[in-house]
C-alpha cells in the first residue's frame, strides 16, 4: 500500500529539520572525528567569512552574477531562435543539426581555452562559456517543444486556414513553453557553472577566481563561502525561472 501523503506543515518542516541535523553533525561531529579545519571548516567558521569579508564576497559575486545572467540570456535566446529556424526549415536542420550535436560533445573545459584565446581575459569569454553551456539543452528541448503539437491540432489550424505565423504564435510556441521552461530551469544552474569555469581558466575576479585562490592559499573557510555563494546564485536564478514559469505556463 502506498504511504499516506505528508501534511503541508510536515513537507516544510522535514527538509528544514533534515538540513539542520546535517549542519549540527557537521559542526560538532566532524572536529571530534579529527577532520582538520583546513579540509572541512565548521559551518560557523564559514558563516564567519560572511561577517568578516562581506565586501570581498560581494565584489566577487558581482562579476559572476553578471556573466551568468548575460550568458543565460544570450545562450537561451540563441537556442530559441535557432530552434525556430530549424523547425521551419527541415533542410537547414538536416544540414546543421549534426554539427551542433558534434560541438556539444566537446567538453566545455576543452572548449574554454579556445574561447579565451578568441575573446581575451575580460568578462566576454566567461559570458560566452556560460552561453555555450546553456545553449544545447535549450535548443534540443525547444525543437522538440515546437514540434510537439499533435497532427489533429495542426489539422484544426489548417481547417481554419491559419498562416504559418499564426500557427507559430497560437500553437507551436505555447505548446513549446513547458519544455522551454524545463530546460531554462536546468540552464539556471549550468549558466553559473559556465561563468565559474571561465573564471578558473583566466580571471582574478569572480567566485571562480576566489575558489582557485582560496584553494591555493589553504583559506578553506573562504573556499566554502564561495561555494555557498555560487550555489545560492544558482538557486536564486532557478527561483526566478520558476516564478516566471508559473505566470506564463497555465496548464
Amino acid at each position, binding site marked *: 500500500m502506498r504511504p499516506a501523503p505528508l501534511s503541508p506543515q510536515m513537507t516544510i518542516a522535514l527538509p528544514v529539520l533534515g538540513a539542520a541535523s546535517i549542519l549540527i553533525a557537521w559542526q560538532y561531529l566532524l572536529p571530534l572525528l579529527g577532520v582538520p579545519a583546513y579540509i572541512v571548516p565548521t559551518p560557523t567558521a564559514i558563516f564567519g567569512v560572511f561577517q568578516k569579508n562581506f565586501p570581498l564576497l560581494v565584489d566577487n559575486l558581482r562579476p559572476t552574477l553578471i556573466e551568468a545572467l548575460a550568458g543565460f540570456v544570450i545562450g537561451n535566446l540563441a537556442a530559441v531562435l535557432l530552434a525556430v529556424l530549424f523547425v521551419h526549415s527541415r533542410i537547414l536542420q538536416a544540414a546543421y543539426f549534426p554539427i551542433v550535436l558534434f560541438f556539444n560533445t566537446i567538453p566545455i573545459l576543452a572548449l574554454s581555452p579556445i574561447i579565451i584565446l578568441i575573446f581575451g581575459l575580460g568578462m566576454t569569454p566567461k559570458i560566452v562559456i556560460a552561453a555555450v553551456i546553456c545553449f544545447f539543452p535549450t535548443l534540443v528541448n525547444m525543437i522538440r517543444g515546437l514540434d510537439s503539437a*499533435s497532427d*489533429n*491540432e495542426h*489539422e*484544426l*489550424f*489548417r*481547417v*481554419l*486556414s*491559419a*498562416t504559418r505565423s*499564426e*500557427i507559430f504564435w*497560437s*500553437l507551436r510556441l*505555447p505548446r513549446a*513553453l513547458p519544455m522551454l521552461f524545463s530546460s531554462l530551469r536546468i540552464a539556471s544552474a549550468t549558466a553559473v557553472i559556465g561563468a565559474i569555469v571561465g573564471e578558473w581558466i583566466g580571471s582574478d575576479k569572480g567566485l571562480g577566481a576566489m575558489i582557485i585562490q582560496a584553494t591555493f592559499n589553504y583559506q578553506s573557510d573562504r573556499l566554502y563561502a564561495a561555494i555557498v555563494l555560487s550555489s545560492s546564485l544558482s538557486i536564486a536564478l532557478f527561483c526566478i525561472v520558476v516564478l516566471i514559469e508559473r505566470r506564463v*505556463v*497555465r*496548464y
Partner: protein
Amino acid sequence: MANAIEANKLDVGYGGRQTAVKVLSGLDLTVAASSFLSILGPSGCGKSTLLRVVADLLDPLGGTINVLGATPHAVRSRRDVGFVFQDSTLLPWRTVRDNVRLPLGVGRRSLTRKIEDRSAELLELMGLSGLGERLPHQLSGGQRQRVAIARALLSEPKLLLMDEPFGALDEITRDRLNDELLSLWRRTGTTILFVTHSIAEAAYLGERVIVLAANPGRVVKDLDMRPFKREGNRCSREDAAIVAAMAELRAALERAS
C-alpha cells in the same frame, strides 16, 4: 434540393501519385444538403480520410469532388466547414471561451466573409454557460467535446464533419450528446457527416448510413434510414425497426471487415 457533396470516382491515397497506397478507390458519393449521414466501417477503411478530403486537408489522387457547389479549398476559405476530432483538440492554455473563439483569431487573411463572435450564445447552446473561464483540463470528457462542437459551429458552417467525436466517452454521456447533436441539426439545417465505429450510434443519428469496406475503401452498403424512423429522423433506440436496421448494418459491416 442541391447536394452538399458530390464525389465521382474518387481515388485517395498517401504517398506519391504512382507509388501511393490507395485508401479510397473509385468512390462515388452524393450527400443531400441538410442531411445527416453516418459513415460506418472497419478500421483503415478510409472513413477519416474521406472527411479529410472534404475538409481540404488532403488532395485526392483522382476523380472529382464538389462540396457545396465549389471546390473543397473554396469552402474551407469561406469557413463553410467545421471539423470535430475524436480527441477534442482544445488548446490547453486557452480558456473554454477562448477555445471557442479560436476561429476568430486565426486565418482571417484568407477569410472571404465576416464571422461574428457568437461564443456566448454557443456556450449557452451547448450547456456550457458558467464554464467559459475554465481551462480544458478542468472539464469532463463530455464537456470538452461540447466545447469542440461549439468551436466548430462558431462560423455557422453549412457542413459539419465529425470524426468519431464521441468515441472516447462513456455510454450515458455519448447518448446524451447524440440527442443534443440531433436537436442542433434540426435547428440549424447543417449537413453533417458523422464517422463512427458504433453501429447503434450510426443508426440512431443518421438519416442515411453508408458502410465502407477497407483495402481499398469503397461503399459496400448504403442504407436509407428514413423508412425505419418517424418524421424528422426521430426514433427510440429500442424501436424494433431500428434494431432490424442495425442487424442489416452489422451484416454489411461483418462482410466488409
